[in-house]
């Protein structure tokens, strides 16, 4: 079966000019090219967001520092958060989903290729619009340019009275635009996964990556839209004289918080679920065993999807909700930890009794496991509302969510890069540079984010551009900043590897990892039509069946 799917007759084409190549990329509706564009776009913004973080950390390295002004610092943390969530994490995960889902379900493309392209360009434009604000907007009191209201843009700070000038509008509009792009991709993924699976691939035989992206897409539909609605309301307040969040007219600042976090919390699950997918594809291959408990993994993810819709106000424990509301959100926030914890156990169960190969993708996955465990546990601490009354809005929370996003999501994304780069480009990334990247990043990550918890415990709030000496925060902030430079070194190694290996990397072949899902049955990189013949599958691991005809999976499923 493997040989069937390889390109049969490569057609000889004349060399094309650079203009033609660029044009090809701009007008493409091919899910693979769009996937690559999403990923490259996100990598550029990862570097930009990283620079923003580095500048902030230098400012906070010592007390009463004057590296940047308060206005610039406030813009930096707003832009850093907004960029990383909307223009790094979302696009990179959509990019991988775009690239991999059709290949893994044996389809030739997504259900709506033109919608796919439209969604990408909407997202791309949104990011450019946000950064245009650096030239075009006016911040608080007319000073500064980029948005400076925090990435949650709490009312009434965003009202015309407190944010004259257009910086908040750039925040609103850029996210509104890219939000519609995300909804488009969500629609596309659902339609593709539900309607375009190859023959024999029932929902129960889909790779977990497809299942998890299905859940994620469903969440996107009902999660991004509350943010869009709230942003429309904000625009009505700012430009049509509306009073949605106008506390002077009887409006409510708290209702913005509710609307925002009804988006905001499920959003972070939208970000982590595709990373669970990467774990669920990579860990089995490098443990040489199937995923432990496939049905429960699906069920747990669906549960997480639903429960995550009911926890949002744990971001609002300090705003003075009733004790009953606080209790409700405390218990739901703790309960969501159960299916999440189950997944951790299932990955350990996958590794247990296997033959673990410590290649770079697996190293990042093991890092994920360790760090996501810790992040989940600090999350349980935050779910306990009274404890949260101390920890909320402090550097403890900042440490917690960076633990999830960098220690979890980014590690999984790095793992995905090392795992699927051979498929996308036809060449292997360097194992040596990969390990260097891993260890440098691991050290830097832990220096920064382990020690970041401590100032929070000692009373350091977040979003402050400086702090007075003598509160016991100085040395911890210094260590946190030092870790940043290790991470920068690691990312530089990574970017160098990406470029160098593209030209000089070892040729990968179809299936360098001896894996089991359909994308490894076609060439690396796959031809435009993906498969010469649409595959027919009988189990969850079609390539395992092909390689082990004496012991195929479908006997046991």
């Amino acid at each position, binding site marked *: 079966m493997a040989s069937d799917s390889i390109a049969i007759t490569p057609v000889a084409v004349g060399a094309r000019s650079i203009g033609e190549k660029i044009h090809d990329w701009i007008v493409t509706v091919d899910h693979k090219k769009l996937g690559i564009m999403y990923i490259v776009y996100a990598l550029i913004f990862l570097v930009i967001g990283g620079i923003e973080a580095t500048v902030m950390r230098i400012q906070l390295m010592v007390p009463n520092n004057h590296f940047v*002004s308060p206005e610039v610092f406030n813009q930096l943390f707003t832009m850093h958060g907004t960029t990383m969530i909307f223009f790094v994490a979302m696009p990179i995960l959509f990019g991988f989903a775009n690239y991999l889902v059709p290949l893994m379900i044996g389809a030739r493309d997504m259900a709506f290729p033109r919608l796919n392209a439209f969604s990408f360009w909407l997202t791309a434009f949104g990011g450019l619009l946000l950064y245009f604000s650096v030239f075009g907007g006016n911040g608080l009191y007319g000073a500064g340019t980029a948005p*400076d209201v925090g990435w949650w843009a709490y009312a*009434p*700070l965003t009202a015309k009275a*407190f944010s004259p000038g257009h910086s908040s509008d750039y925040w609103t509009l850029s996210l509104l635009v890219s939000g519609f792009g995300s909804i488009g991709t969500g629609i596309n993924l659902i339609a593709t996964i539900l309607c375009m699976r190859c023959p024999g691939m029932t929902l129960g035989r889909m790779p977990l990556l497809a299942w998890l992206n299905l859940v994620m897409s469903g969440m996107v539909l009902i999660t991004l839209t509350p943010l869009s609605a709230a942003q429309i309301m904000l625009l009505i307040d700012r430009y049509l004289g509306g009073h949605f969040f106008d506390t002077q007219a*009887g409006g409510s*600042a708290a209702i913005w918080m509710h609307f925002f976090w009804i988006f905001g919390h499920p959003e972070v699950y939208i970000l982590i679920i595709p990373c669970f997918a990467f774990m669920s594809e990579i860990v089995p291959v490098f443990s*040489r*065993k*199937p995923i*432990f408990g496939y*049905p*429960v993994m699906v069920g747990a993810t669906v549960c997480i999807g639903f429960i995550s819709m009911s926890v949002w106000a744990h971001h609002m424990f*300090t*705003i*003075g909700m*009733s004790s009953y509301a606080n*209790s409700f959100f*405390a218990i739901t926030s*703790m309960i969501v930890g*159960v299916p999440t*914890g*189950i997944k951790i*156990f299932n990955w*350990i*169960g996958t590794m*247990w*009794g296997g*033959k673990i*190969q*410590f290649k770079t993708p697996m190293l990042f996955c*093991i890092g994920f496991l360790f760090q996501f*465990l810790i992040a989940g*546990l*600090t999350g*349980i*601490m935050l779910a*306990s509302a*009274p*404890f*949260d*009354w*101390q920890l*909320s*809005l*402090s550097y403890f929370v900042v440490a917690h969510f960076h633990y999830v996003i960098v220690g979890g999501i980014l590690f999984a994304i790095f793992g995905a890069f090392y795992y699927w780069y051979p498929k996308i480009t036809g060449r292997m990334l360097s194992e040596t540079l990969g390990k260097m990247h891993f260890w440098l990043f691991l050290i830097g990550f832990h*220096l920064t984010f*382990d020690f970041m918890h*401590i100032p929070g415990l*000692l*009373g350091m*709030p977040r*979003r402050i551009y*400086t702090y*007075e000496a*003598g509160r*016991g925060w*100085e040395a911890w902030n210094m*260590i946190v900043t030092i870790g940043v430079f290790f991470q920068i070194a690691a990312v530089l190694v990574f970017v160098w590897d990406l470029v160098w290996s593209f030209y000089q990397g070892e040729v990968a072949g179809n299936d360098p990892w001896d894996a089991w899902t359909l994308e490894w049955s076609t060439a690396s990189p796959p031809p435009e039509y993906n498969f010469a013949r649409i595959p027919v599958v009988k189990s969850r691991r079609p390539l395992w069946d092909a390689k082990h005809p004496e012991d195929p999976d479908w006997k*046991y499923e």
Partner: protein
Amino acid sequence: MKCSEQTRNRFTNVAGVAVLLAGFLFAARLSFGARDPSQIPNIFRPDSTPADSIFNLSMLVLSVTGAIFLVVFGLIVYAVLKYGKRAGDDRREPPQVYGSNQIELAWTVIPVLIVLVLFLATARVILSVQDAPKPPGSIEVTAIGHQFWWEFRYPKLGIVTANEVHVPVSDRSHPTPTFLTLLSADTDHSFWVPRLAGKTDLIPNHPNSMWIDPHETGLFLGQCAQYCGVEHALMLLRVYVDSPEQFAEWVQTQKMAAANDNSVEQGRRVFESTGCIDCHAVKGTVANGHFGPDLTHLMSRDTIAAGAAPNTLQNLRNWIQDPDSIKPRSLMPAMKLNDHDLDALVAYLGTLR
């Protein structure tokens, strides 16, 4: 992966941990050596019942999560060490195990039980802190958040002050807690003095309340914890917990009208004629502005500009002439007075004890 590579990896692990540990100890020495530890706003050194309750709950939560961490971390380390591919491996695939109903059931039920225990402990503290009744001896303070300073009113005592709040120490047998009503004049703020209580937000059009009952006298530091604009970082809080005598004395002073010292008549005239009274109030004079802090007893405070600078005459001078030098983009305008007027004004303010 070869044995030597594994050993090298393990060595790097150990070295890494050693580095982290050294860094930790170094930082600990630096941090805690710096200042009187009682002034470090450490949530693990509570000094008031709400903070105590939270501390006790946090110990339970930390123990439980710590235990979970040790177990799961242990499993991960064990799996990684035991099931790594060895040199001399026979290249056969290991047994393909698809799952196990009993194991999966167990590791579902146990976490649910843990969650139940944690939740019950949590709910108890929520109710005891949030729904605590107000005993008759309580002091009532209304805190109004502004960009970027705190207004404190004691409605029953007729006191208005700013940024530094005085409360009496509370005896456990005869509690005299302080109940704060939290309001906001503009954007969202948050009142956080870690050693005394968890934080509660000040949200416009959404009154909140909280309480503290400090067990020891002293100064407790905190600051605004909800991003409220440009100078959010310099909206500091100082809570002075006084003995009953000290508190009574403080109340007595604060209730009085402003000192009326004739030698600074000139300065008072500058104050009353150059727009200061548009924003500031001084009890017993024509100054009745509400946009900025009440200055009746300005010199009884240790800091100015919500903790941004110590309260000295020189700092006051700088603050009036060029607020941006102390707190850039605060809402205090630069008054652009000539030196003569400025000196007189500062001398006048210096009498407002």
